[in-house]
Protein backbone atom coordinates (compact mmCIF):
# COMPACT_ATOMS: atom_id res chain seq x y z
CA UNK A 1 0.00 0.00 0.00
CA UNK A 2 2.84 2.33 0.97
CA UNK A 3 4.61 1.45 -2.29
CA UNK A 4 1.42 2.24 -4.23
CA UNK A 5 1.05 5.60 -2.43
CA UNK A 6 4.71 6.36 -3.12
CA UNK A 7 4.26 5.55 -6.81
CA UNK A 8 1.14 7.75 -7.05
CA UNK A 9 3.04 10.61 -5.43
CA UNK A 10 5.96 10.09 -7.83
CA UNK A 11 3.59 10.15 -10.80
CA UNK A 12 1.97 13.35 -9.49
CA UNK A 13 5.37 15.03 -9.15
CA UNK A 14 6.39 13.92 -12.66
CA UNK A 15 3.10 15.22 -14.11
CA UNK A 16 3.56 18.60 -12.38
CA UNK A 17 7.13 18.83 -13.70
CA UNK A 18 5.92 18.05 -17.22
CA UNK A 19 3.25 20.73 -16.94
CA UNK A 20 5.80 23.25 -15.65
CA UNK A 21 8.14 22.37 -18.50
CA UNK A 22 5.34 22.85 -21.01
CA UNK A 23 4.48 26.27 -19.51
CA UNK A 24 8.15 27.35 -19.54
CA UNK A 25 8.62 26.13 -23.08
CA UNK A 26 5.43 27.81 -24.30
CA UNK A 27 7.01 31.11 -25.45
CA UNK A 28 9.42 29.20 -27.69
CA UNK A 29 6.63 27.16 -29.16
CA UNK A 30 4.57 30.29 -29.93
CA UNK A 31 7.37 32.50 -31.36
CA UNK A 32 5.91 34.57 -34.18
CA UNK A 33 7.30 35.12 -37.65
CA UNK A 34 6.83 38.69 -38.89
CA UNK A 35 7.25 39.85 -42.47
CA UNK A 36 8.94 43.03 -43.69
CA UNK A 37 8.65 43.95 -47.35
CA UNK A 38 11.30 45.87 -49.30
CA UNK A 39 9.70 47.77 -52.17
CA UNK A 40 10.49 51.08 -53.92
CA UNK A 41 13.71 51.30 -51.87
CA UNK A 42 11.69 51.40 -48.64
CA UNK A 43 10.70 49.02 -45.87
CA UNK A 44 6.91 48.76 -45.66
CA UNK A 45 7.07 49.95 -42.02
CA UNK A 46 9.62 52.10 -40.19
CA UNK A 47 9.10 50.51 -36.75
CA UNK A 48 8.07 47.14 -35.42
CA UNK A 49 7.79 45.75 -31.87
CA UNK A 50 8.24 42.03 -31.41
CA UNK A 51 8.89 39.53 -28.60
CA UNK A 52 12.21 37.82 -27.80
CA UNK A 53 12.52 34.73 -29.94
CA UNK A 54 10.32 36.13 -32.72
CA UNK A 55 11.75 36.28 -36.20
CA UNK A 56 11.42 38.63 -39.15
CA UNK A 57 11.31 37.48 -42.73
CA UNK A 58 12.83 40.16 -44.98
CA UNK A 59 11.34 39.91 -48.46
CA UNK A 60 12.69 41.77 -51.51
CA UNK A 61 9.65 42.56 -53.65
CA UNK A 62 11.45 44.93 -56.05
CA UNK A 63 11.29 44.41 -59.80
CA UNK A 64 15.01 44.78 -60.48
CA UNK A 65 16.71 46.20 -57.38
CA UNK A 66 19.02 44.30 -55.03
CA UNK A 67 19.06 45.01 -51.30
CA UNK A 68 21.51 44.19 -48.52
CA UNK A 69 19.83 44.30 -45.11
CA UNK A 70 22.02 44.43 -42.00
CA UNK A 71 22.15 45.79 -38.48
CA UNK A 72 25.00 46.93 -36.26
CA UNK A 73 22.68 46.63 -33.25
CA UNK A 74 22.92 47.81 -30.51
CA UNK A 75 21.15 44.46 -29.87
CA UNK A 76 20.71 41.49 -32.24
CA UNK A 77 23.30 42.66 -34.82
CA UNK A 78 23.10 40.64 -38.05
CA UNK A 79 24.09 40.64 -41.69
CA UNK A 80 22.14 39.23 -44.58
CA UNK A 81 23.73 38.57 -47.94
CA UNK A 82 22.64 40.61 -50.95
CA UNK A 83 19.00 39.86 -51.74
CA UNK A 84 17.98 39.75 -55.38
CA UNK A 85 14.38 40.59 -56.32
CA UNK A 86 12.10 37.79 -55.11
CA UNK A 87 14.50 36.52 -52.46
CA UNK A 88 13.74 36.40 -48.72
CA UNK A 89 15.75 35.77 -45.55
CA UNK A 90 14.77 35.16 -41.94
CA UNK A 91 16.41 36.65 -38.84
CA UNK A 92 15.68 35.66 -35.24
CA UNK A 93 15.71 38.40 -32.58
CA UNK A 94 16.66 36.86 -29.22
CA UNK A 95 17.83 39.81 -27.10
CA UNK A 96 15.41 42.39 -25.66
CA UNK A 97 16.35 45.91 -26.77
CA UNK A 98 16.53 48.00 -29.92
CA UNK A 99 17.91 46.96 -33.29
CA UNK A 100 18.46 49.58 -36.00
CA UNK A 101 18.10 47.85 -39.36
CA UNK A 102 19.36 49.38 -42.62
CA UNK A 103 20.03 48.51 -46.22
CA UNK A 104 23.76 48.86 -46.89
CA UNK A 105 23.05 49.94 -50.46
CA UNK A 106 20.11 52.31 -50.01
CA UNK A 107 20.63 54.81 -47.19
CA UNK A 108 16.97 55.86 -47.07
CA UNK A 109 15.89 52.40 -45.90
CA UNK A 110 15.65 52.31 -42.11
CA UNK A 111 13.74 50.12 -39.72
CA UNK A 112 13.71 50.18 -35.92
CA UNK A 113 13.02 46.81 -34.33
CA UNK A 114 12.09 46.87 -30.64
CA UNK A 115 12.31 43.53 -28.88
CA UNK A 116 10.21 43.56 -25.71
CA UNK A 117 9.09 40.80 -23.33
Amino acid at each position, binding site marked *: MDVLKENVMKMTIISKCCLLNMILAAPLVFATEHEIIQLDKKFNVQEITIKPGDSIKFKNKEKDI*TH*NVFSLGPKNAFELKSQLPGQESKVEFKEPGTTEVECA*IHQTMKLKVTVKK
Partner: protein
Amino acid sequence: MAIFLVFAIIFVTSNFTLKAESSLSELQSQYQRPSSIPYLETNKHSKAREELGKHLFFDPRLSGSKVMSCATCHNPSFSWADGLPKGVGHGHLKLGRKTPTILNLAWTEKLMWDGRFNQLEGQVLGPIGSEAEMNMSLQGPEGLAEVVKGIKGYKNMFKKAYPGEEITPELIAKAVAVYERGIVSEEAPFDHWLKGDQKAISQEAKDGFMLFNDKAKCASCHSGWRFTDDSFHDIGVKDEDIGRGKFLKLTSQQHAFKTSSLRNIDQRGPYMHNGSEKTLEDVVEFYNKGGNAKRESLSEMIKPLNLSNNEKKSLVAFLHTLTSNDKPVTLPILPR
Protein backbone atom coordinates in the same frame (compact mmCIF):
# COMPACT_ATOMS: atom_id res chain seq x y z
CA MET B 1 -16.92 46.95 -92.88
CA ALA B 2 -14.27 49.37 -94.10
CA ILE B 3 -15.72 52.11 -91.88
CA PHE B 4 -15.64 49.74 -88.91
CA LEU B 5 -11.97 48.95 -89.59
CA VAL B 6 -11.05 52.64 -89.81
CA PHE B 7 -12.79 53.30 -86.47
CA ALA B 8 -11.06 50.30 -84.92
CA ILE B 9 -7.65 51.52 -86.10
CA ILE B 10 -8.35 55.07 -84.83
CA PHE B 11 -9.48 53.66 -81.46
CA VAL B 12 -6.43 51.40 -81.06
CA THR B 13 -3.95 54.13 -82.12
CA SER B 14 -5.48 56.79 -79.91
CA ASN B 15 -5.53 54.36 -77.00
CA PHE B 16 -1.86 53.55 -77.61
CA THR B 17 -0.95 57.26 -77.82
CA LEU B 18 -2.87 57.98 -74.60
CA LYS B 19 -1.06 55.14 -72.82
CA ALA B 20 2.34 56.33 -74.08
CA GLU B 21 1.54 59.90 -72.98
CA SER B 22 0.40 58.78 -69.54
CA SER B 23 3.50 56.63 -69.01
CA LEU B 24 5.69 59.58 -70.07
CA SER B 25 3.90 61.97 -67.71
CA GLU B 26 4.12 59.38 -64.93
CA LEU B 27 7.87 59.16 -65.54
CA GLN B 28 8.22 62.92 -65.66
CA SER B 29 6.40 63.25 -62.32
CA GLN B 30 9.24 61.31 -60.67
CA TYR B 31 11.70 64.10 -61.50
CA GLN B 32 9.87 67.17 -60.14
CA ARG B 33 12.05 69.62 -58.24
CA PRO B 34 11.24 70.22 -54.54
CA SER B 35 9.75 73.56 -53.50
CA SER B 36 12.01 74.19 -50.49
CA ILE B 37 15.41 73.32 -49.05
CA PRO B 38 15.53 71.08 -45.95
CA TYR B 39 17.38 72.42 -42.90
CA LEU B 40 17.94 70.61 -39.61
CA GLU B 41 15.63 71.49 -36.69
CA THR B 42 18.81 72.03 -34.66
CA ASN B 43 20.34 74.32 -37.28
CA LYS B 44 17.63 76.31 -39.00
CA HIS B 45 18.28 78.76 -41.80
CA SER B 46 18.71 82.47 -41.24
CA LYS B 47 20.26 85.09 -43.49
CA ALA B 48 22.91 85.79 -40.82
CA ARG B 49 23.86 82.09 -40.65
CA GLU B 50 24.04 81.76 -44.43
CA GLU B 51 26.26 84.88 -44.71
CA LEU B 52 28.55 83.68 -41.91
CA GLY B 53 28.78 80.22 -43.48
CA LYS B 54 29.67 81.71 -46.86
CA HIS B 55 32.52 83.74 -45.36
CA LEU B 56 33.89 80.69 -43.55
CA PHE B 57 33.54 78.54 -46.70
CA PHE B 58 35.76 80.91 -48.69
CA ASP B 59 38.22 81.64 -45.88
CA PRO B 60 41.69 80.02 -46.30
CA ARG B 61 42.54 80.81 -42.67
CA LEU B 62 40.48 77.71 -41.79
CA SER B 63 43.35 75.53 -43.07
CA GLY B 64 46.69 74.61 -41.51
CA SER B 65 48.62 76.25 -44.35
CA LYS B 66 46.27 79.31 -44.37
CA VAL B 67 46.07 79.04 -48.17
CA MET B 68 43.32 76.42 -48.62
CA SER B 69 39.62 77.05 -48.14
CA CYS B 70 36.66 74.73 -48.69
CA ALA B 71 36.27 76.54 -52.02
CA THR B 72 39.77 75.55 -53.15
CA CYS B 73 38.44 72.10 -54.01
CA HIS B 74 34.71 72.94 -54.11
CA ASN B 75 35.14 75.74 -56.60
CA PRO B 76 31.88 77.33 -57.83
CA SER B 77 33.58 77.99 -61.18
CA PHE B 78 33.84 74.21 -61.67
CA SER B 79 30.31 73.37 -60.54
CA TRP B 80 31.51 73.24 -56.92
CA ALA B 81 34.31 70.72 -57.56
CA ASP B 82 37.82 71.11 -59.04
CA GLY B 83 37.62 69.56 -62.50
CA LEU B 84 40.51 67.21 -61.69
CA PRO B 85 40.56 63.39 -61.79
CA LYS B 86 41.64 63.35 -58.14
CA GLY B 87 41.61 66.11 -55.54
CA VAL B 88 44.73 67.94 -54.38
CA GLY B 89 45.19 68.40 -50.66
CA HIS B 90 47.61 69.91 -48.16
CA GLY B 91 51.09 70.49 -49.57
CA HIS B 92 49.77 70.00 -53.12
CA LEU B 93 49.65 66.26 -52.57
CA LYS B 94 47.24 64.28 -54.72
CA LEU B 95 44.33 62.74 -52.82
CA GLY B 96 42.94 59.26 -53.38
CA ARG B 97 39.58 60.22 -54.90
CA LYS B 98 37.92 62.78 -57.10
CA THR B 99 36.47 65.85 -55.38
CA PRO B 100 32.68 65.46 -55.43
CA THR B 101 30.47 68.47 -56.10
CA ILE B 102 28.58 69.97 -53.17
CA LEU B 103 25.58 70.87 -55.32
CA ASN B 104 22.20 69.80 -53.90
CA LEU B 105 23.54 68.09 -50.77
CA ALA B 106 20.82 69.31 -48.42
CA TRP B 107 18.75 66.32 -49.51
CA THR B 108 21.25 63.61 -48.65
CA GLU B 109 22.17 62.12 -45.30
CA LYS B 110 25.34 60.08 -45.82
CA LEU B 111 28.15 62.12 -47.35
CA MET B 112 31.52 61.51 -49.04
CA TRP B 113 32.11 58.85 -51.70
CA ASP B 114 31.98 56.19 -48.97
CA GLY B 115 29.16 57.72 -46.87
CA ARG B 116 31.25 57.95 -43.72
CA PHE B 117 29.76 61.23 -42.47
CA ASN B 118 26.14 62.01 -41.63
CA GLN B 119 24.52 65.29 -42.71
CA LEU B 120 26.51 68.33 -43.85
CA GLU B 121 26.72 69.51 -40.24
CA GLY B 122 28.61 66.30 -39.42
CA GLN B 123 30.78 66.37 -42.52
CA VAL B 124 32.31 69.85 -42.55
CA LEU B 125 35.02 69.19 -39.93
CA GLY B 126 36.16 66.00 -41.74
CA PRO B 127 38.11 67.66 -44.57
CA ILE B 128 39.06 70.71 -42.45
CA GLY B 129 40.66 68.48 -39.79
CA SER B 130 42.10 65.89 -42.18
CA GLU B 131 45.92 66.02 -42.36
CA ALA B 132 45.74 65.13 -46.05
CA GLU B 133 43.19 67.81 -46.90
CA MET B 134 43.02 71.16 -45.08
CA ASN B 135 45.26 69.98 -42.24
CA MET B 136 43.74 72.31 -39.63
CA SER B 137 44.04 71.44 -35.97
CA LEU B 138 40.59 71.23 -34.41
CA GLN B 139 41.86 71.77 -30.86
CA GLY B 140 44.44 73.82 -28.95
CA PRO B 141 45.57 77.45 -29.10
CA GLU B 142 46.27 77.26 -32.85
CA GLY B 143 43.09 75.30 -33.45
CA LEU B 144 40.09 76.16 -35.59
CA ALA B 145 37.89 77.79 -32.93
CA GLU B 146 40.73 79.94 -31.55
CA VAL B 147 41.71 81.12 -35.03
CA VAL B 148 38.13 82.14 -35.80
CA LYS B 149 37.65 83.75 -32.38
CA GLY B 150 40.80 85.79 -33.02
CA ILE B 151 39.19 87.49 -36.03
CA LYS B 152 37.13 90.39 -34.69
CA GLY B 153 34.66 90.49 -37.58
CA TYR B 154 33.71 86.84 -37.07
CA LYS B 155 32.89 87.46 -33.39
CA ASN B 156 30.18 89.92 -34.44
CA MET B 157 28.90 87.66 -37.20
CA PHE B 158 28.60 84.71 -34.79
CA LYS B 159 26.76 86.92 -32.26
CA LYS B 160 24.14 87.72 -34.92
CA ALA B 161 23.91 84.20 -36.34
CA TYR B 162 24.06 82.14 -33.15
CA PRO B 163 23.40 84.54 -30.25
CA GLY B 164 24.71 83.39 -26.88
CA GLU B 165 26.51 80.34 -28.32
CA GLU B 166 30.22 79.78 -27.83
CA ILE B 167 32.35 79.56 -30.98
CA THR B 168 33.40 75.92 -31.22
CA PRO B 169 34.47 73.75 -34.17
CA GLU B 170 30.94 72.25 -34.17
CA LEU B 171 29.31 75.70 -34.36
CA ILE B 172 31.64 76.66 -37.22
CA ALA B 173 30.57 73.46 -38.99
CA LYS B 174 26.90 74.35 -38.48
CA ALA B 175 27.35 77.76 -40.08
CA VAL B 176 29.19 76.32 -43.09
CA ALA B 177 26.48 73.65 -43.44
CA VAL B 178 23.73 76.31 -43.60
CA TYR B 179 25.57 77.96 -46.51
CA GLU B 180 26.20 74.63 -48.26
CA ARG B 181 22.55 73.58 -47.96
CA GLY B 182 21.65 76.61 -50.04
CA ILE B 183 23.94 75.60 -52.92
CA VAL B 184 21.31 74.26 -55.32
CA SER B 185 21.46 73.93 -59.10
CA GLU B 186 18.82 76.01 -60.82
CA GLU B 187 16.31 74.88 -63.42
CA ALA B 188 17.85 73.19 -66.45
CA PRO B 189 16.33 72.68 -69.94
CA PHE B 190 15.12 69.29 -68.68
CA ASP B 191 13.03 71.04 -65.98
CA HIS B 192 11.55 73.43 -68.56
CA TRP B 193 10.50 70.38 -70.59
CA LEU B 194 8.88 68.88 -67.49
CA LYS B 195 6.95 72.12 -67.10
CA GLY B 196 5.54 71.73 -70.59
CA ASP B 197 7.98 73.55 -72.91
CA GLN B 198 8.23 70.92 -75.65
CA LYS B 199 11.03 72.82 -77.39
CA ALA B 200 13.24 73.01 -74.29
CA ILE B 201 15.05 69.80 -75.24
CA SER B 202 15.62 67.98 -78.56
CA GLN B 203 13.83 64.84 -79.71
CA GLU B 204 17.16 63.01 -79.38
CA ALA B 205 17.32 64.04 -75.70
CA LYS B 206 13.70 62.95 -75.16
CA ASP B 207 14.60 59.55 -76.63
CA GLY B 208 17.59 59.51 -74.30
CA PHE B 209 15.30 60.16 -71.32
CA MET B 210 13.20 57.12 -72.24
CA LEU B 211 16.32 54.96 -72.63
CA PHE B 212 17.64 56.31 -69.32
CA ASN B 213 14.51 54.99 -67.62
CA ASP B 214 14.10 51.79 -69.62
CA LYS B 215 16.71 49.88 -71.62
CA ALA B 216 19.79 51.52 -70.10
CA LYS B 217 18.35 51.18 -66.55
CA CYS B 218 20.23 54.30 -65.37
CA ALA B 219 17.19 55.35 -63.31
CA SER B 220 17.50 52.26 -61.11
CA CYS B 221 20.02 54.37 -59.15
CA HIS B 222 20.06 57.81 -60.82
CA SER B 223 16.46 58.50 -59.81
CA GLY B 224 14.55 61.55 -58.54
CA TRP B 225 15.11 65.24 -59.32
CA ARG B 226 18.80 65.08 -58.31
CA PHE B 227 19.22 61.95 -60.46
CA THR B 228 20.58 59.92 -57.56
CA ASP B 229 19.06 57.75 -54.85
CA ASP B 230 22.34 58.18 -52.88
CA SER B 231 22.90 54.43 -52.99
CA PHE B 232 26.29 52.68 -52.70
CA HIS B 233 27.38 50.19 -55.37
CA ASP B 234 30.41 48.53 -56.85
CA ILE B 235 29.85 49.48 -60.49
CA GLY B 236 33.01 47.78 -61.71
CA VAL B 237 35.59 50.59 -61.81
CA LYS B 238 39.05 48.98 -61.90
CA ASP B 239 40.72 50.26 -58.74
CA GLU B 240 42.35 49.02 -55.53
CA ASP B 241 40.22 51.45 -53.47
CA ILE B 242 37.55 49.41 -51.61
CA GLY B 243 35.44 52.50 -50.82
CA ARG B 244 32.66 51.92 -48.31
CA GLY B 245 33.96 48.39 -47.77
CA LYS B 246 36.69 49.84 -45.55
CA PHE B 247 34.25 50.26 -42.68
CA LEU B 248 31.24 48.20 -43.72
CA LYS B 249 32.49 44.65 -44.14
CA LEU B 250 29.65 43.40 -46.33
CA THR B 251 30.41 41.88 -49.73
CA SER B 252 28.07 44.32 -51.50
CA GLN B 253 30.00 47.25 -50.05
CA GLN B 254 33.48 46.24 -51.21
CA HIS B 255 34.52 48.76 -53.91
CA ALA B 256 31.17 50.50 -53.35
CA PHE B 257 30.89 54.26 -53.85
CA LYS B 258 28.02 56.69 -53.67
CA THR B 259 25.86 57.18 -56.75
CA SER B 260 26.61 60.65 -58.10
CA SER B 261 23.92 63.21 -58.82
CA LEU B 262 23.70 63.99 -62.54
CA ARG B 263 22.73 67.65 -62.19
CA ASN B 264 25.18 69.81 -64.21
CA ILE B 265 26.99 66.61 -65.04
CA ASP B 266 28.50 67.87 -68.31
CA GLN B 267 30.34 70.50 -66.23
CA ARG B 268 31.75 67.97 -63.79
CA GLY B 269 34.10 65.68 -65.67
CA PRO B 270 36.22 63.64 -65.48
CA TYR B 271 33.91 61.02 -63.99
CA MET B 272 33.77 58.19 -61.43
CA HIS B 273 35.28 58.26 -57.92
CA ASN B 274 38.78 58.18 -59.39
CA GLY B 275 38.21 60.35 -62.46
CA SER B 276 38.97 57.40 -64.72
CA GLU B 277 36.38 58.25 -67.41
CA LYS B 278 37.09 61.48 -69.28
CA THR B 279 33.83 62.20 -71.10
CA LEU B 280 30.14 61.43 -70.84
CA GLU B 281 30.53 59.27 -73.95
CA ASP B 282 33.17 57.26 -72.08
CA VAL B 283 30.83 56.83 -69.11
CA VAL B 284 27.97 55.58 -71.30
CA GLU B 285 30.37 53.15 -72.99
CA PHE B 286 31.61 52.00 -69.56
CA TYR B 287 28.07 51.06 -68.52
CA ASN B 288 27.27 49.65 -71.95
CA LYS B 289 29.98 47.03 -71.60
CA GLY B 290 29.06 46.26 -67.97
CA GLY B 291 31.98 47.94 -66.19
CA ASN B 292 35.70 47.17 -66.25
CA ALA B 293 36.14 44.85 -63.29
CA LYS B 294 34.45 41.53 -62.62
CA ARG B 295 34.48 40.61 -58.92
CA GLU B 296 32.21 39.20 -56.21
CA SER B 297 31.07 42.62 -55.03
CA LEU B 298 30.02 43.86 -58.49
CA SER B 299 26.41 45.05 -58.39
CA GLU B 300 23.95 42.65 -60.03
CA MET B 301 22.61 45.62 -61.95
CA ILE B 302 25.85 46.10 -63.87
CA LYS B 303 25.42 44.05 -67.04
CA PRO B 304 26.14 44.70 -70.73
CA LEU B 305 23.36 46.89 -72.14
CA ASN B 306 23.75 46.28 -75.89
CA LEU B 307 23.04 49.90 -76.76
CA SER B 308 23.32 50.96 -80.40
CA ASN B 309 25.46 53.98 -81.35
CA ASN B 310 22.33 56.09 -81.79
CA GLU B 311 21.04 55.04 -78.38
CA LYS B 312 24.35 55.99 -76.76
CA LYS B 313 24.19 59.39 -78.49
CA SER B 314 20.63 59.91 -77.27
CA LEU B 315 21.65 59.17 -73.70
CA VAL B 316 24.48 61.70 -73.86
CA ALA B 317 22.13 64.27 -75.46
CA PHE B 318 19.75 63.78 -72.55
CA LEU B 319 22.54 64.19 -69.96
CA HIS B 320 23.43 67.57 -71.50
CA THR B 321 19.90 68.82 -70.74
CA LEU B 322 20.54 68.55 -66.98
CA THR B 323 22.87 71.56 -66.86
CA SER B 324 21.46 74.78 -65.46
CA ASN B 325 22.64 78.27 -66.25
CA ASP B 326 23.47 79.09 -62.63
CA LYS B 327 24.18 82.65 -61.50
CA PRO B 328 27.87 83.39 -60.88
CA VAL B 329 28.81 83.36 -57.20
CA THR B 330 30.06 86.59 -55.65
CA LEU B 331 33.07 86.30 -53.38
CA PRO B 332 32.78 87.66 -49.83
CA ILE B 333 35.13 90.30 -48.43
CA LEU B 334 36.59 88.40 -45.48
CA PRO B 335 36.70 89.97 -41.99
CA ARG B 336 40.08 90.89 -40.47
